[in-house]
């Protein structure tokens, strides 16, 4: 599998990572190298094999749907680049 410059541009937008134009070609080369190496998985017969999402051999626990924490918005927003009155501020969205 070989990725071209345009595909890398598209993935970068999906991932919301700005990639300068002059880095698209080298990145396409590196990513293609990784994907080509990964192609070897095609050799493995996985018919009738269940996909494994977790090694934890357990049923996920339930808990009561109640608030267990919170009530300190100023602590929660303390690290925000921009905040006001316990809210995060982002640039104006005009669509």
């Amino acid at each position, binding site marked *: 599998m070989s*990725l071209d410059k345009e595909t*890398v541009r598209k*993935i*970068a*937008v*999906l*991932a*919301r*990572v*700005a*990639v*300068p134009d002059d880095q698209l070609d080298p*990145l396409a080369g*590196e*990513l293609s*190298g*990784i*994907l080509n*190496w*990964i192609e*070897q*998985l*095609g*050799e*493995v017969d*996985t018919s009738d*094999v*269940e*996909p*494994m*999402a*977790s*090694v*934890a*051999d*357990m049923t*996920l*626990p339930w*808990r009561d749907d109640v608030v267990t924490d919170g009530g*300190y918005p100023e*602590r*929660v*927003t*303390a*690290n*925000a*680049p*921009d905040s006001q009155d316990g809210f*995060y501020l*982002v*640039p*104006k*969205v*005009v669509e």
Partner: protein
Amino acid sequence: MITLTDLTIAEARKGLDAKTFTAAELTDAHIAAMEARADLNAYVLPTPDRAREMAAASDARIAKGKAGAMEGIPIAMKDLFCTDGTRTTAGSKILGNFVPPYESTVSANLWSAGAVLLGKANLDEFAMGSTNQTSAFGDVVNPWTRTDEPTRKLVPGGSSGGSAAAVAGRIALGATGTDTGGSIRQPASFCGIVGLKPTYGRCSRWGIVAFASSLDQAGPMARTVEDVAIMLGAMAGHDPKDSTSAPIAVPDFTAALEQGVKGLKVGIPREYRPEEGLSPEIDAIWTRGMEMLKDAGAEPVDISLPHTKYALATYYIIAPAEASSNLARYDGVRYGLRVLDEGDGLNDMYMKTRGAGFGAEVKRRILIGTYALSAGYYDAYYLKAQKVRSLIARDFKAAFDQGVDVILTPATPSAAFPLDDAPSDPVTMYLNDVFTVPTSLAGLPGLSVPVALTEAGLPQGLQLIGRPFDEETVLRAGRALEKAAAFTATPSLLEG
């Protein structure tokens, strides 16, 4: 005259209880050593003031006879663990000056047991790397050097490179690490220390900056198997805040250490001698390790783990896929870096912030992960990798079902390499994890124990792999190997 920084955790605990020295003295000795060895760059943030306060509190508890298992022991905390009120960076520029308003469960457990925080340890950015060179805070220097090139600096391994260098360099008695594909075991081997990746679910992941959630596991790094056992006991335990944390009791990991390996069946997987060849030197050390266990009464058993060769490719789909999702949270809104120019909209802010904040390796993995999860490719890459993962886990289960108690393999395919000669090709770099990744995919405990020096005078570790939640057997076999190997060499840095 004893050198306080040379003690093991077990020896330091005895000395503190016997009042031979105080926790304050032990901590001060480490702070002085940290300053003298600042050029290792093992710490991204030393916390001497906090260390002295914690040591004073430890001395007060010792005076009252209320010492915990790690009371007064100065440690390094990998900067992936959130520490309340102390900057946490994950080795990335994107977290900026993030100061967590909460404490990770594992670090909280260590403080409850009395441990003292010397500082936050350097690491590969978001724990993605095998050399510590992806850190936004500069390279870490391995305290060891080759005998034939004594001035050439070597990598400490990664991602827990700062933790490993700190422990090997005698500027911490122990350190926390995290291991997703080998990030505890590989640097432990490169730096000649002991490192344990516990079973997935043994230690809570809550409050650890997430990389790949189905693989990440915290574990201890120290200079002896006993020290690792002591530390694990303090770190582990069920935590309702991590739904994959196992609701099972934490045994006394030190209790069985000296029971030996008489009668244990030690699996030797033939696939760990890959077609492209294993370095004859590493192969010989592996054989020697097997003979040591045999001489101690264990029975070596030839086993097959047929899907081993596919583990790396599987890992490099699953881990980036999970990372691309986990790292979506770094968007310039709630914490860390924000890049916003006049007139920019929200999307511009996301793109620019992430473009400027993430390093090259992290970007590569986010892009691979995004691609593998994107419409049209999900089945071909992600689902396929999850299926091969099942087969890899099944291989290990079959080996243990046939009566094998523990598996012995090399920890790494080579010893530490020079900082200025690290592979630039990503795939070549990924091969560093060839022996550690299968264990991670199967969620099993893996212990790296230094066994011998290579011809160049560098430490080389062997890995012991155990059944799920059977760290006790792994540690017991590790102790037997440690005893037989009698690895007493110290880093060249300490001699100079």
